[in-house]
């Protein structure tokens, strides 16, 4: 026969005498085996106990046992001195089980009204970490740090140690000493407890030109990459702890840009900060050649990855020729920003629409010639009709 798989014991339950709340029968011997999951203690609380009292509970009794060891024997009624009543005090099993035995004799003297008992039991987590060391001499449950959990416990280790496969013993580990956060704290193994001896195995001593600390020292170089912590086989160091921070590399603040500006404009620039340069309206970015935009990053060597550009004044180019007309330069030079020109038509044979003698255009920031209505379209010269330049004699009849 195969043993049936047992379901996990419940974490709580109720146990009552037969026929409860009716009087229990005579000549009864009944046993209850109570249990909760491993890692818990069973706690029993009586909500009601009414068993015929007698000296030493000789006639009727409820016996509580743990592994066949009698923990208590109850009879009597609450608030009565006869017998032995548990009262409101819970009973805690040394382990995760208890046995209850109810025994009644053959007689139930009148008036018989003893109802029996009703009890509630529940599982209480065992704080294995707080318990004294096992008596088998195996030592504490965890060699360094014990964490109590529901129904169990787990062990962990301090920095510089790692947990062995037995899940309770910590052994020294010099690996995993890499700190890659911008700031933090690192300390010697076991700090603030003394460090274990012999952290480093010295194979060769080259010279005596080392630090003044002969036996225990902590060496920190200017740009800490590896910190060497050494202890020999004697002496007692209390260990060390240091807090470290990092600071990003700085780049020089960019010089001011004539007819332009650098953004963002902050007091200091650090590694991976970006700057942009934009020109004032009417100016264009030049970096040897014209560029549409400029951005530079502060590199890890403290240098900007691109040299600063310059802002040069824009020009609109030669104004478009006007058919049957012409253009005259009024102000400015080289068709630069804000230069002013005037379109006119070849009068009297052509004229501008509306009869104006000329239209003013200005070189705008977007490099187009625009009139006073901000229109970039150049005018048209319309032929003049019916107006000869030479009149027939007015006096001839």
């Amino acid at each position: 026969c195969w043993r049936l798989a047992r379901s996990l014991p419940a974490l709580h339950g109720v146990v009552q005498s037969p026929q409860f709340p009716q009087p229990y029968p005579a000549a009864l011997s009944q046993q209850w085996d109570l249990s909760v999951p491993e890692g818990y203690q069973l706690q029993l609380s009586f909500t009601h106990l009414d068993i015929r009292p007698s000296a030493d509970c000789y006639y009727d009794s409820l016996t509580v046992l743990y592994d066949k060891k009698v923990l208590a024997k109850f009879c009597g009624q609450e608030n009565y001195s006869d017998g032995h009543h548990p009262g409101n005090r819970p009973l805690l099993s040394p382990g995760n089980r208890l046995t209850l035995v109810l025994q009644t004799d053959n007689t139930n003297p009148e008036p018989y009204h003893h109802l029996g008992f009703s009890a509630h039991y529940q599982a209480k987590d065992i704080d294995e970490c707080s318990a004294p060391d096992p008596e088998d001499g195996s030592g504490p449950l965890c060699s360094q740090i014990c964490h109590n959990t529901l129904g169990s416990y787990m062990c962990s280790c301090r920095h510089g140690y790692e947990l062995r496969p037995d899940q309770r013993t910590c052994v020294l580990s010099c690996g995993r000493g890499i700190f890659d956060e911008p700031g933090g704290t690192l300390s010697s193994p076991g700090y603030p407890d003394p460090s274990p001896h012999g952290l480093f195995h010295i194979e060769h001593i080259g010279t005596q030109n080392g630090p003044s600390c002969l036996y225990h020292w902590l060496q920190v170089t200017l740009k800490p990459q590896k910190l060497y912590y050494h202890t020999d086989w004697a002496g007692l160091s209390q260990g060390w702890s240091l807090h470290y921070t990092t600071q990003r590399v700085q780049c020089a603040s960019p010089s001011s840009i004539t007819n332009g500006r650098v953004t963002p404009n902050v007091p200091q620039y650090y590694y991976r900060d970006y700057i942009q340069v934009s020109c004032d309206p009417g100016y264009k970015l030049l970096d040897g050649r014209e560029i549409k935009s400029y951005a530079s990053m502060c590199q890890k060597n403290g240098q900007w990855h691109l040299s600063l550009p310059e802002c040069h004044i824009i020009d609109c180019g030669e104004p478009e020729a006007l058919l049957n007309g012409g253009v005259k330069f009024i102000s400015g030079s080289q068709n630069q920003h804000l230069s002013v020109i005037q379109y006119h038509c070849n009068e009297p044979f052509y004229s501008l629409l509306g009869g104006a003698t000329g239209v003013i255009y200005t070189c705008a920031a977007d490099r187009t010639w625009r009139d006073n209505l901000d229109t970039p379209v150049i005018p048209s010269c319309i032929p003049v009709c019916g107006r000869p330049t030479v009149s027939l004699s007015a006096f001839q009849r």
Partner: protein
Amino acid sequence: IMGGDKAPGKTIPWQVMLSVEGGKGGAMVIGDHWIMTAAHNLVHQGKLVLKEKVRVFLGDNDAEKLAKLTPLGVTSLHPHPEYKTPDNANCNHDIALIKLQQPLTFHAAIMPLCLPPENATYNIGQMGMVSGFVVKEDDIIANNLRYIRLPVVKEDECQDSVNRAKAATPTEKIPVLTDNMFCAGVPEGGKDSCTGDGGGAYVLRDGSTKLFWAAGIVSWGVGCGQTGRYGVYTRVAKYISWINETMEDN
């Protein structure tokens, strides 16, 4: 032109000299790509002449000089679609447009004539001017452009004149006078446009703007410069929409 005078240079800059299949005619500049003339210059015996046969000259008052120039290239001919004269007896809608291949650049010697204003009026007795290269009825080409000032004639008077002509020469098919035409001239005769001037401009001057506008196109007449007879001109103001549509469509 009968009874007129030489036109000084640059006084009539819209004048065009046409030569179509050996025949001479007039026309006027109305746009940098457009010439306006009489349909009878382009439609011979009911058929539209080939555009290659139409030679356009302008820019000088000397006919000999003009004739020696390279004529302007013609893109297309546009006689009025209702001009129909199978027997040369119907001169209604005697108007046509000629589109040039190359745009004209205007200057003192070449300028366009204005089209009639919106509220154009042909006031009776108002003095207009007609010009042409033909000197008299014999179709002798004048060396120089000539012009004559002629008044607008009352419609009744013009109709009476036509009626008298019909009565005098009943066998001849004299064209019908319509309200798409008007008359200009003097009753005593001696001053008129004539054959060869056809297609040229009869201009009036706007009182407020002082601009010359094309009031008429030399179209037809019974004889030239005869007493009691007048020249008949196409009333251009009636064709503003057609002129604009033709130019826009092309």
